[in-house]
């Protein structure tokens, strides 16, 4: 099994927990396991997946990025504003991604040059960015994009293929799923197959040791935040294409889920490294839980409780498994 998934996932307990959750939902609600619903879960998870992949780079480098919410929104806002002013969709999207990269640049500048802690820097950026959104949208009104081009709409709403009729058996494979998969594959390649990835993990494990052994610490911190900013802006653009509008402050909605997904993913790895397969499993976990709780008709108020309890259980299983394995030679959690 480890050959199948790769060296990143060395702890299976979380996977089994995920399977158990799936089985429970399948029993409670027969519609859950239909192909139509599974493809629903995937398309509902695509945007969160892209955000979480972006965040994975920063967390792998030993930092944290709360401003992913802002990169997400700035990406969406820039794209929508540019297209509103008559720009073609492709340059608008590219400039919007650039705007996200700029957010990452601002963060890393303060972190690398001024040596502020990433938590504070990105928290400050979050405050500033959300305020800019409100200023641009007269206090937070959505910006609608009625005349959006077909190509732009295809980004978030288009289907690659549709199988089956209009009933529950309909499988709708959205284009956005493909984008998420492509981004994830590229990120996985970068993190696991390149010198950049290896050194980024070294930086995350032991910054001083990494610097002494020749890792260009500053440059890589920059790269991690630029990647995070750009990728999250892409997620925001896809999100705005799904809604054909820009809704201010919608990035906040993804912030904590993305952090949760990346950390669930890192708990799957023996060294505790944030990694792409793990992140995707974390994202799927959130998608499956939200979808399954909805289908099983549980009171909306209980859904948040259930989500927290399930994360707690996964963490518990993971730590119990780790303790069992590590009992003879206890390693310290750095």
């Amino acid at each position, binding site marked *: 099994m480890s050959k199948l998934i790769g060296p990143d996932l060395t702890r299976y307990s979380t996977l089994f927990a995920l399977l158990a959750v799936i089985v429970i939902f399948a029993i409670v609600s027969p519609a859950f396991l239909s192909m139509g619903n599974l493809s629903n879960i995937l398309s509902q998870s695509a945007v969160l997946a892209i955000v979480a992949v972006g965040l994975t780079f920063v*967390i792998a480098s*030993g*930092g*944290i990025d709360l401003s992913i919410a802002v990169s997400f929104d700035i990406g969406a806002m820039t794209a929508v504003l540019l297209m509103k002013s008559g720009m073609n969709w492709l340059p608008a999207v590219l400039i919007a991604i650039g705007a996200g990269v700029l957010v990452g640049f601002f963060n890393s500048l*303060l972190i690398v040059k*001024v*040596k*502020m*802690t*990433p*938590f*504070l*820097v990105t*928290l*400050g*950026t*979050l*405050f*500033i960015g*959300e*305020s*800019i959104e*409100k*200023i641009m949208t007269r*206090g*937070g009104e959505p910006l609608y994009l009625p005349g959006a081009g077909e190509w732009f709409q295809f980004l978030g709403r288009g289907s690659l293929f549709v199988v089956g009729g209009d009933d529950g058996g309909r499988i709708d494979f959205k284009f956005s799923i493909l984008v998420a998969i492509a981004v994830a594959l590229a990120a996985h390649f970068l993190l696991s197959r390149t010198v950049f990835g290896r050194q980024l993990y070294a930086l*995350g494990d032991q910054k001083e040791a990494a610097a002494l052994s020749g890792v260009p610490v500053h440059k890589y911190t920059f790269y991690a935040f630029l990647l995070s900013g750009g990728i999250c802006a892409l997620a925001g653009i896809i999100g705005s294409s799904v809604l054909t509008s820009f809704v201010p402050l919608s990035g906040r909605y993804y912030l*904590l889920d993305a*952090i*949760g997904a990346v*950390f*669930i993913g890192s*708990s799957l790895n023996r060294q505790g490294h944030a990694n792409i397969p793990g992140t995707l499993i974390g994202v799927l976990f959130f998608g499956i839980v939200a979808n399954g709780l909805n289908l099983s008709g549980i009171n*909306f*108020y*209980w*859904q*948040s*409780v*259930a*989500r*927290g*309890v399930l*994360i*707690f259980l996964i*963490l*518990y299983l993971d*730590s*119990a498994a*780790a*303790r069992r394995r590590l009992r003879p030679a206890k390693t*310290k*959690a*750095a």
Partner: protein
Amino acid sequence: MNPQIRKNQPVGVLSSFIFKYSGYLIFILVALYFAARSPAFLTLQNVKNILLQSSALGIIACGMTAIIVGGGSHVVRGGIDLSLANNMALNAAVTSFMVASGYPVWVAIGTALAASILVGAINAFSVVKLGFIPLLGTLSMMYILQGVQLLITKNTVISISDPFLKAVANGALFGIPVAVWMFAVSGAAVYLLFHRTVLGNWMYAAGGNPDAARAAGIPVHFVVALTYIIGSITAAAASLIIVSRLSGTVPGVGDLMLLDVLLAGLMSAIFSRLAQPNIAGTVLSALFVGMLSNGFTLINVPTYWVFAIKGVLILGAVSITTTQQRKVMRHV
């Protein structure tokens, strides 16, 4: 840098002064700016207002700082409690619900306190015994608490009226509001605990280097667990102020506060010579945040600009201080 040059360069009196007090200088400059722009700013009544507005934030931020100190300031694995603001909101929900259903106010406050401490104990258990990353363990607790609040309040505003809570909201002792007294007393208590007792030294040691602390015989697990309990008690104290001032509870009151609490806790380092989180700095940071909100309202800055200016000022303050501290640290 050439060590020879470093040795021969004396630390300037001015630069060491700026280094020691840059956090305070920024605080005073901003206050002076507001005072120049609005005559109402430096009146006794307005200063009281600022203290009143910062009291709940300040109390709970002391709890956050305690947790950051005990867990260490590592970005990912360090001590943090994302559920702290929602713990306060849970406390507010329990108190309001029980008073609204006719229980005596003391029973309500006692039950709510027990609930908050239980939450803190679960966090402590999951971090210390089960070895969860604090960020993630408390994140899951935050989701749970958000749901429990919805279950208790049914997502509605609960309004209560109670003589004791009214006294907390409107009462004053020697002309100083009760909430400000609570802020002062809890700030002083946590300050004494952290900076004047052995236990406080243990907490800094546990956060700084857990292995070394353990080797020195410090009960690291107990100390770290204690910080989460302290945090939950501050959440309960802050909730009392919130409940009395709002005459009940409003959905989402915790989510609004989380980032400000984190900010005040982390920003406390700029008021410290060692650039470490500390209680006095936390109190000042909470007052700084409260002063910014108050001052911008007085000089009529549109509300959606406030957050941007707040963010820029905070980043500015922290970056100036960090740079100053680095410049002088080099000479030490």
